[in-house]
């Protein structure tokens, strides 16, 4: 129990301060949104490269190296951003893991359906691969939007 009592104005000032500090944490949560978008960007870049191939099943050394470079640079970048995070809220980190988890599940479904319906068959054009990738990354964009709108 407190011996001194703040005036209503002082109490209001303290509430404003509490709100200001909460906003700082929500703002830094946005970094999690950038990480989620980074994962989507890596996936989309690989999808775009695969879509340029005459036959995605026969990539060749140049395109293979390009895909590897995109993935390595992207993953290193994500790790660097992740290590630089200095604060996160419970909701922010939950949305992040929910987004990545949903993406993994949804991606598996998209790939499974694409194979089962012969959408990715060798007779199909390469851009089919890119379209599947665009559909697969939807949960990541939703997660980033949910993190940012807070």
């Amino acid at each position: 129990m407190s011996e001194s009592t703040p005036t209503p104005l002082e109490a209001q000032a303290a509430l404003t301060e509490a709100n200001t500090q909460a906003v700082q944490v929500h703002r830094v949560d946005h970094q999690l949104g950038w990480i989620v978008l980074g994962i989507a960007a890596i996936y989309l870049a690989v999808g775009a490269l695969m879509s340029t191939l005459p036959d995605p099943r026969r990539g060749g050394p140049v395109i293979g190296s390009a895909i590897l470079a995109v993935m390595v640079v992207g993953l290193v970048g994500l790790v660097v951003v992740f290590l630089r995070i200095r604060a996160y809220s419970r909701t922010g980190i939950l949305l992040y893991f929910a987004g990545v988890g949903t993406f993994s599940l949804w991606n598996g479904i998209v790939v499974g359906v694409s194979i089962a319906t012969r959408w990715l068959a060798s007779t199909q054009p390469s851009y089919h691969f890119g379209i599947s990738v665009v559909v697969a990354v939807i949960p990541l964009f939703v997660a980033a939007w949910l993190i940012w709108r807070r």
Partner: protein
Amino acid sequence: MSHPRHALDDLLGHPVRFSVTALLAAASKVEFSFVRDHVEVTDSMLSKQVSTLEQAGYVKVDKGFVGKRGRTWLSLTREGRRTFERHLGALREIAQSDGAGAAVRPS
């Protein structure tokens, strides 16, 4: 015991401790340097206040390493969160009052 001041917490009456707790209340975990930068205090001042809050059971301190760099993470305990919510509730009541009886501050 109906006056909202009874629900105020003495430890959180200190402005730095209040700001630190408010920042931690919005977060799951916060790095020491982030709190220092946003509450705008020195390392030693923050260490002192965090130590007080830790002894009261309001704050948990976790130390770890990223490579060779040491990092200290702060978080509110359940007790700290509960106390802060109660303190905030009392402040809200006082802020909404017309000041009669609440505006008197002992000198």
